[in-house]
């Protein structure tokens, strides 16, 4: 990808007031969005921007839930905010480019049912041993090193390995997957003519994998999508490709971010780390609080027709940034919303979205997060940040630390 493109994204004007000019790739938002969201929730609670050709950002749990459940007024045709609402090659609604996340009812239900069985608790639980082996492999590779980057050396490796195997792609291609994800999710504030070409290597890669699976069908998710029949008909090729791209993109960055944020938290909260080390049974409850507090995923909608939303004059094709992470910090919905409470028993968080698009991969994500943390703290019962200022965060709609310089104690 071009270095120019990245430089360009850095050259834009910093935000002065997020209420009227929000930008989720602004450096203040990227490094610490929570005070910004708290302020907007009290002042607005729906912020607006003219950037990205116009969009809104509701900050309360109630409004986020309302929009997530209102597929009549909001379309999922595009769920990543960019400067191009009408990419030339994207399949139109109701399917969109990456079914089911970009699909609207009634097509959505069809596209979702097709893939739900592969991600149900049964098949996912069967992968636990594989995930654990992957974790120990990367921990073993660290050897006796006492200072390392837990993002680059650990967090980023867990989910790509699982997804590669599921799709039937060579595991050795992991680095390319992270490049694809970087293009789709991080390099969003580019001109359309700059962003478009960045997708070509990914399209080519998927076409090659599809050709290979057509020639040599095997027992994996790609072959399943290529061969599954509905009413005697196979899926359109762009449907198969779209779902494969979605699985790769949604399955990698998200879980990697959740693992990273959790390790980052534990590095700064020895009391929480000690509790988990001494009481492994607490882990499933803690995982829900990690997911609430550091929810990595924000999705978007487009407004279908002009609409008055609680006094906001939304226009057709305006973006709506659906801040599940902001909803998770709403004091109306959570007691002590800005406190991380590792044994929070009542936790109705929205990290995996709400309504019909609820994350299909949530069982897998939870298991990966739990196992990755279990293995990490079993190997390293005490650790801290070696260089707090060296921590970097991914920009855009999937938030997580990319560099986490750690020091292992003892």
């Amino acid at each position, binding site marked *: 990808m071009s270095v120019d493109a990245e430089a360009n994204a850095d050259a834009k004007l910093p935000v002065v007031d997020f209420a009227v000019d929000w930008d989720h790739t602004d450096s203040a938002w990227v490094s610490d969005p929570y005070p910004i969201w708290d302020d907007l929730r009290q002042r607005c609670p729906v912020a607006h921007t003219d950037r990205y050709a116009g969009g809104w950002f509701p900050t309360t749990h109630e409004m986020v839930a309302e929009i997530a459940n209102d597929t009549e007024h909001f379309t999922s045709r595009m769920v990543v905010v960019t400067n191009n609402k009408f990419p030339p090659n994207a399949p139109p609604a109701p399917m969109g480019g990456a079914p089911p996340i970009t699909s609207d009812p009634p097509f959505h239900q069809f596209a979702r049912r097709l893939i739900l069985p592969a991600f149900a608790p049964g098949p996912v639980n069967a992968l636990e041993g594989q995930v654990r082996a992957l974790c120990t492999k990367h921990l073993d590779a660290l050897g006796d090193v006492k200072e390392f980057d837990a993002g680059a050396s650990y967090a980023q490796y867990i989910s790509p390995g699982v997804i590669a195997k599921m799709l039937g792609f060579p595991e050795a291609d992991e680095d390319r997957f992270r490049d694809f994800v970087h293009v789709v999710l991080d390099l969003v504030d580019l001109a359309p003519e700059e962003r478009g070409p960045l997708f070509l290597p990914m399209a080519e890669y998927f076409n090659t994998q599809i050709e290979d699976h057509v020639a040599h069908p095997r027992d994996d998710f790609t072959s399943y999508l290529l061969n599954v029949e509905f009413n005697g008909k196979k899926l359109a090729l762009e449907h198969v490709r779209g779902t494969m791209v979605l699985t790769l993109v949604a399955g990698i960055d998200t879980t990697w971010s959740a693992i990273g944020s959790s390790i980052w938290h534990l590095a700064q909260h020895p009391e929480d780390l000690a509790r988990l080390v001494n009481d492994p049974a607490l882990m499933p409850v803690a995982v829900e609080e990690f997911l609430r507090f550091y929810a990595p995923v924000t999705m978007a909608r487009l407004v279908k027709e002009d609409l008055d939303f609680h006094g906001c004059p939304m226009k057709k094709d305006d973006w709506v940034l659906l801040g599940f992470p902001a909803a998770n910090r709403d004091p109306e919905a959570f007691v002590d919303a800005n406190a991380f409470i590792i044994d929070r028993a009542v936790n109705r968080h929205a990290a995996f979205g709400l309504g019909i698009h*609820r994350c299909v991969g949530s*069982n897998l994500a939870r298991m990966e997060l739990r196992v990755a943390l279990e293995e990490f703290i079993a190997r390293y019962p005490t650790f801290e940040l070696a260089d707090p200022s060296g921590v970097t965060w991914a920009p855009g709609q999937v938030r997580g630390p990319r560099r986490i310089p750690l020091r292992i104690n003892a």
Partner: protein
Amino acid sequence: MGGNVKVVIDADLCQGQGRCFSIAPSIFNFDDLGNGFVIGDGELSPETIDLARLAQANCPEHAIFIEESS
């Protein structure tokens, strides 16, 4: 005998978030699509009612209902 207390999942609201069967596997299970369902007739005893309420309080879709009938 007093009234019976029953737990039900509204299948139209359930999106398979999976909190219920993780928190209370003795009361809830999941189907092939990963959606939750109530095991058996859903009748709760004084010993199980708190667990059912905890699951209810954690369902993000508000899909779990606890009904009292006499």
